């Protein structure tokens, strides 16, 4: 392969994609195992799992769009919207369970008032728990995170496909780079976060640096390896 200015642009795109995934994970309101027992606010699953589920759904949408056009903006938007739809329907159906099966009002224990709707939170936090359900602020934050993940996945996939022209190879590399960045971000937030209003969100610069290093290494490797295939 020729290592020219285009290759550098491709590497930069992959790095930006990886960073978007890493920061996007911080927005996704995941409560881990406690949230599955309605013991903490957020979605009751693991950070990486949910980010991967939504971001890779976005990758499917971006891949479909890329097979018919080479307009970068359409591909990125398609990836973001695909991921947003997955994240939205997951949180919506999760809300049904919290509201109609567990029978609990939604509340976050990290803030006194919901920054978006202004609803008071502490009176609705069940005793012995740290909130439950998905309040509007968590829902919005989750959508932002999911869409950033989809955008990042599409941004990793786009240059790889331009280099090797092989959708399957590019998709596998995109999944790999996506998961590495999601796991690094997940360590940074120690597995649970409620969204951008959570105090843990302020730790994002650590993840930014770590994801930057990982993405640089992965971008170099993926550009070289897929270029040789």
């Amino acid at each position: 392969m020729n290592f020219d200015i285009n290759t550098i642009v491709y590497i930069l795109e992959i790095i930006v994609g990886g960073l978007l995934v890493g920061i996007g994970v911080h927005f996704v309101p995941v409560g881990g195992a406690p949230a599955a027992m309605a013991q903490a606010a957020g979605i009751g699953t693991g950070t990486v799992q949910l980010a991967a589920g939504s971001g890779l759904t976005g990758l499917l949408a971006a891949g479909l769009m890329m097979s018919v056009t080479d307009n970068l903006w359409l591909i990125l938007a398609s990836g973001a919207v695909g991921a947003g739809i997955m994240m939205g329907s997951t949180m919506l159906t999760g809300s049904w369970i919290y509201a109609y099966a567990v029978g609990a009002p939604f509340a976050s224990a990290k803030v006194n008032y919901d920054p978006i709707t202004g609803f008071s939170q502490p009176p609705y936090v069940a005793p012995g728990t740290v909130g439950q359900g998905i309040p509007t602020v968590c829902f919005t934050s989750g959508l932002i995170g999911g869409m950033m993940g989809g955008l990042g996945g599409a941004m990793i996939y786009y240059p790889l496909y331009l280099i090797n022209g092989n959708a399957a190879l590019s998709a596998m590399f995109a999944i790999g780079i996506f998961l590495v960045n999601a796991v690094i971000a997940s360590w940074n937030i120690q597995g649970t976060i409620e969204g951008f209003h959570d105090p843990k969100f302020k730790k994002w610069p650590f993840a930014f640096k770590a994801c930057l290093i990982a993405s640089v290494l992965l971008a170099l490797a993926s550009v070289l390896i897929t270029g040789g295939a």
Partner: protein
Amino acid sequence: MDAFSMGLIAAMGALATVAGASEDIESDIGSQSNPNSQVQLAAQVGNPHRIYNKAISGEPPANALWAATAAIVAYTLITAFQMSALLALVAGASVAALFNGVLSMSAYFGRNSSQKRFNQWVYLDIIRYTTPSIMAHAWITSFCIATISYIMVYMLPTPHPFPMAVIALIWGLAVGAIGSSVGDIHYGGEREFQNRQFGCGLNTMLSGQIVRKAEAGLRNSIDNAWFCTKFGGPATGMGFGLTVFLDNWRTTVFDPVTQAPYAIAMGLFFIIVMVVYNNYIEKSARRKYGPYPEYKGDIAA
């Protein structure tokens, strides 16, 4: 858009709904996901139980494995042996179910025998009649997802560029993520602590105190599946069905070659509707249930 491709999209939505429901019930019978932390803890705090315990990994990677296995076997049979697609998909799902059975059983033996010091037994009758139910549900999930991948690659007017196995892997990850986020709350938040006060999450003090007695006799995982099929499973199905249907509907109704911006705008419209609907659920739950009487702070409800 023509009637045939619209029918395919509808079929994909229906298959996804079934896949989501069966995925959630499979994880409830096997007690796989986050609520299993309580099942695992129960024996350690002095409550040995007869619940199946197979949390080998998170649900998304596990389901990605079953779905990708089914798709790879089906793809091989279709391309190398010219088998008919339906039979190949059935064979692929059967292989995936066998994988699932092996991993479930080894997880049950390993987890329960490692808790011998807490007086937790390995129940062979549980293995005998619960494992086939888990495998059956894994079969349904992997068959539906492999079929969705087949439709996306070979039948839709705009075929997807990814190979069948990669699409199945991604949908498997997605269905696992949705099952873990949606249906498992019904199992963990409600069914495992059914004898506690309704209308709130699990109080931290009660961790590990899961319900061990059933309507008749001792509770086992089949009883949990009976309960979770009433709401958790169908809700998971709706979540995954909506994801697959809405995501593909917008790129089928609007041709991605000429009307791509409309497809993206339609997706954004769906997302905004979801935000509004969630806000409605939040408001109605606050209005109907009210604040907790134990609250002693000075912030007004």
